[in-house]
């Protein structure tokens, strides 16, 4: 038999068939994904940019981005035309036309106005979360990789952190609820408490140091998200620290640098791209999460932005907005998708919010993917 004989036709067609099946599987995944993006964009884009709707209109629906969510009022006017207005506009409408005919009035909660509150809330949650998670995460990674003696103990900690990265986000939410929301964590100095003391009260300076729990608040939500993303950030940072060749450190130390000088000048700069990628990835994960903030931070309706008219929450040394609950994009979508029946009037809010939210998260995700590919190409030792 000739060993260099080319494959039989049967073999060839079998191979070709197999390859086509595998390619088909791949492209079906891509097709489904692109269909989801397309479907959401098709419905949501006209809400954000009415130019693209069938009726046409302005380029950007600024109202949608700059108004707070409100109740939507649907009604039929004198000519029998169906109208829908956010509740504040509706009140103005009835004031302006006191004898206007309003028939078949129907209200839909959360479905009118815009998404300013949720957008701001999500941004703040991500900010609080990332500040905490990055500071603690990077420092912990530096310690584990640069300072700690690489023994069994550190190995075990590393393993524990890696395993925690796979824990479902709702479990972190559960923990956050018990620990940040309900557990008295925040020391507060108060005078004039009388006999009505909580369990733990340390008397000092003529008053008492007591501990308060945070309740449903921006800070509790941000910390819960930080705890959730911490294992991911530690693991990713450690990986990029490990990727810096040992020679860099040895050369630097041999030149007489102190440990910190070595880390600052010879390790961190080369690990920065990896850390940056990890943080953008962290933002993507955190911004998209709903479960951990459902009962630690988010509320469905709030009339004001976090920094407007401070509320009296009693934890005086913290800015009020940190201890106040917020609206958040994912929770807003959950509320309008799950609790509000979909009609022509309410669909705009649903589709628009989903589209803007997806756009936001996808932007971060694309940046993180781009950064990773870019740096992988660029940094090779």
């Amino acid at each position, binding site marked *: 038999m000739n060993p260099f004989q080319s*494959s039989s036709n049967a*073999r060839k067609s079998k191979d070709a068939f197999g*390859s086509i099946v*595998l390619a088909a*599987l*791949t492209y079906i*995944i891509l097709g*489904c*994904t*692109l269909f*989801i993006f397309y*479907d*959401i964009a098709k419905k949501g884009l006209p809400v954000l940019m009415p130019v693209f709707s069938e009726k046409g209109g302005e380029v950007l629906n600024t109202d949608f981005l700059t108004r707070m969510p409100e109740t939507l009022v649907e009604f039929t006017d004198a000519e029998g035309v169906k109208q829908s207005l956010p509740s504040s506009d509706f009140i103005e409408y009835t004031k302006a036309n006191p004898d206007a005919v309003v028939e078949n009035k129907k209200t839909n909660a959360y479905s009118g106005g815009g998404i300013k509150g949720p957008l701001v809330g999500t941004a703040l949650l991500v900010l609080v979360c990332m500040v905490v998670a990055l*500071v*603690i*995460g990077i*420092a*912990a990674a*530096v*310690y*584990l990789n*640069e*300072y*700690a003696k690489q023994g069994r103990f550190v190995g075990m900690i590393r393993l*524990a*952190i*890696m395993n*925690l990265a*796979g*824990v*479902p986000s*709702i*479990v*972190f*939410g*559960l*923990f956050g609820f*018990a*620990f940040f929301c309900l557990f008295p964590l925040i020391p507060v100095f108060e005078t004039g408490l009388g006999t009505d003391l909580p369990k733990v009260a340390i008397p000092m300076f003529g008053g008492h140091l007591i501990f308060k729990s945070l309740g449903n608040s921006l800070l509790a939500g941000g910390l819960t998200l930080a*705890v959730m993303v*911490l*294992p991911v950030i530690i693991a990713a940072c450690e990986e990029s620290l490990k990727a810096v060749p040992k020679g860099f450190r040895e050369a630097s130390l041999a030149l007489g640098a*102190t*440990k*910190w000088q070595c880390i600052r000048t010879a390790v961190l700069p080369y690990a920065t791209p990896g850390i940056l990628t990890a943080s953008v990835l962290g933002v*993507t994960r955190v911004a*998209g*999460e*709903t479960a951990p903030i459902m009962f630690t931070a988010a509320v469905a309706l709030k009339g004001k932005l976090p920094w407007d008219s401070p509320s009296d929450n009693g934890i005086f040394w913290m800015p009020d907005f940190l201890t106040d609950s917020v609206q958040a994009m994912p929770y807003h*979508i*959950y509320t309008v*998708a799950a609790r509000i029946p*979909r009609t022509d009037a309410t669909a705009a809010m*649903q589709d628009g919010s*989903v589209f803007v939210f*997806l756009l936001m*998260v*996808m932007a971060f995700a*694309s940046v993180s*993917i781009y950064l990773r590919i870019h740096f992988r190409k660029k940094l090779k030792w």
Partner: protein
Amino acid sequence: MATHFKRKGKRLLGVGRQDAIRYFFGGNAMVSILVLGAICGFLLREAVLFFPQHQRDLEVFRLTGQEYANFAITEMDEYTEVKSLANQAFYQEMNEAYGIQRGLVDSFGALSGNIYDAGEDLIEELEDARDEVEDAEAEGEKTLAQAELDAIQAKWDIFLRAELEKADRKTIDSFGRLGEAEWQQLLKAMVEWDPVEDEPPALVAAAKAESDEGMATFDTARTTIAAAGSELARLRGELIKVTTAIKDEAVADKSAASRKKAYLDGSLVAETEEERVELRRKSDEITVREEFPYAERIKVLEGSREKHKTAVEAMKVDLKAGVAALPTEFSSPEVTELVSRIRDKAPVLTVYLGESLMESADWRYDEPLSWVYSVSSFFFGKDWVTNSSFHDFYGLLPLFTGSLLISVIALLVAIPFSLGAAIYVNRLAGPAEQTFIKPVIELIGAIPSVVLGFFGIIVLGEALREVSQVPWLSWVPGFPMQERLNILNAGLLLALMAVPTIFTLCEDAINNVPASFSEASLALGGSKFQTVMKVVVPTAISGILAAILLGFGRVIGETMVVLLVAGNQIAIPDFSLGAGVITQPAHTMTGIIAQEMGEVTKDTIHYRALFSVGLVLFTISLLINISARRIIRRFGFSA
């Protein structure tokens, strides 16, 4: 120069700058480890505390006799399933065998109702006019009344014709059971319809008689089955009432001491004498007992055992008679299927009733209850019922089954796609394809789950239901689907979520197969495809297994998609439907936490039950992670 090696720096409290930096990093590491440790601690604490509390709760359940009432409740539940099957089969058969007849009867009802509403005033006039004709005595009066009646009658006839002209077949006959010919016949018959007498026209009456006669046997069987439960239902209601009263009293008794004290304290600081006396009186009214006299209260249940026995025996007999009386010939396979399910279920139910009766006969209110029972009734309990006026049950089984079913479907769908894509991208695709496909699949992982859930409600649910209603697909088990939000819908969306995880890890595993392996295979004359399928993939199998496991971990921990799309019905899916079980709604472990956590009070049994569910999830995900790592370490290749 020795100065180069001299380390300078201020020291504060004996800590140099280098040490301070070191402590900063170490401190942060400490904080993160502590927080991550606190997670385990908190979960474990709340979850473990659940079990003693659950045990006390179950003790009260037993002592108050509610556990006995629960026998009757579960028996009724099981029986109701058979009963509703019988009803379902009956109506379906009636619609299919006598569709036109039922269509005529129902359309007549709808049509006459509409006309009646539209012409209410006219009909009243007509009625009055007729009364007047009848009441009229004098001859002249009579002719006058008759003339008036004729005028109104003529007006009515015109009105009726106009209304019939307007009638829309689609809205009246909403199920579309009538053909054009029957519709016209009905309209023709309706012309004769008299709104005052409101007798159906002969056509409709004949149709009704025909369908009633044809369905007579089935109807008798159905009513026999339906009547089988009446006695037990009565007993069930009685038991619930009596035992819940005992429980309410027992619960009130627990707080008696503190209530008494509160009234007493109140009376001391009350401002007026009147108030003081009133509060003192209230305080005196409350008697504080050392122990609640369960033995005395439970006596009301005496005699229930006898009643229970007779009720169950009667139910067995009636059920048997009813099932035997069911007809054997049906007009469609669906009804045959439904009836055969009744025939299958009835003997199972009879056996169950017997067992339950025996068990209830052995039941003692004062039988001690061990912690094992508390643990096992959590892990294997079939009910999760909260905020109930009777008793709250915390059984994990329905939630666990829901989570597992959804995850298994997600994996079954996701594995072929992601594994195929991984093989294709790593070994067969060109570089241009690779740089395009990989980022897109990674992007899937970043789609927020709440967005996917929204897509599932709005688009996928509708699409699936439409597909399931296509007639030539009706052989698929579970089709046509009853619910838009169900296990299948959630499973498909979660499959998409699992794809990036499984794909990336599989791709890594395939990438790590040493080049020499495939080179050897190619050198021996294997084709490229053969090499990939017979050498590369089997070598990477450990990595692929680990990828599947981690994909499973990702799917079972997913919350928002299942909360939005799985249908949130807390019940063990009906496995008697075979593969059709996947078109039923379900609830999940993650979903229940998300749904109920917001409204529980701290430290209550419900709060802790949710933590126990959380601990189960936590343990599952840890086990999955650890075993995936093990698999890779033991069998994996590191290139």
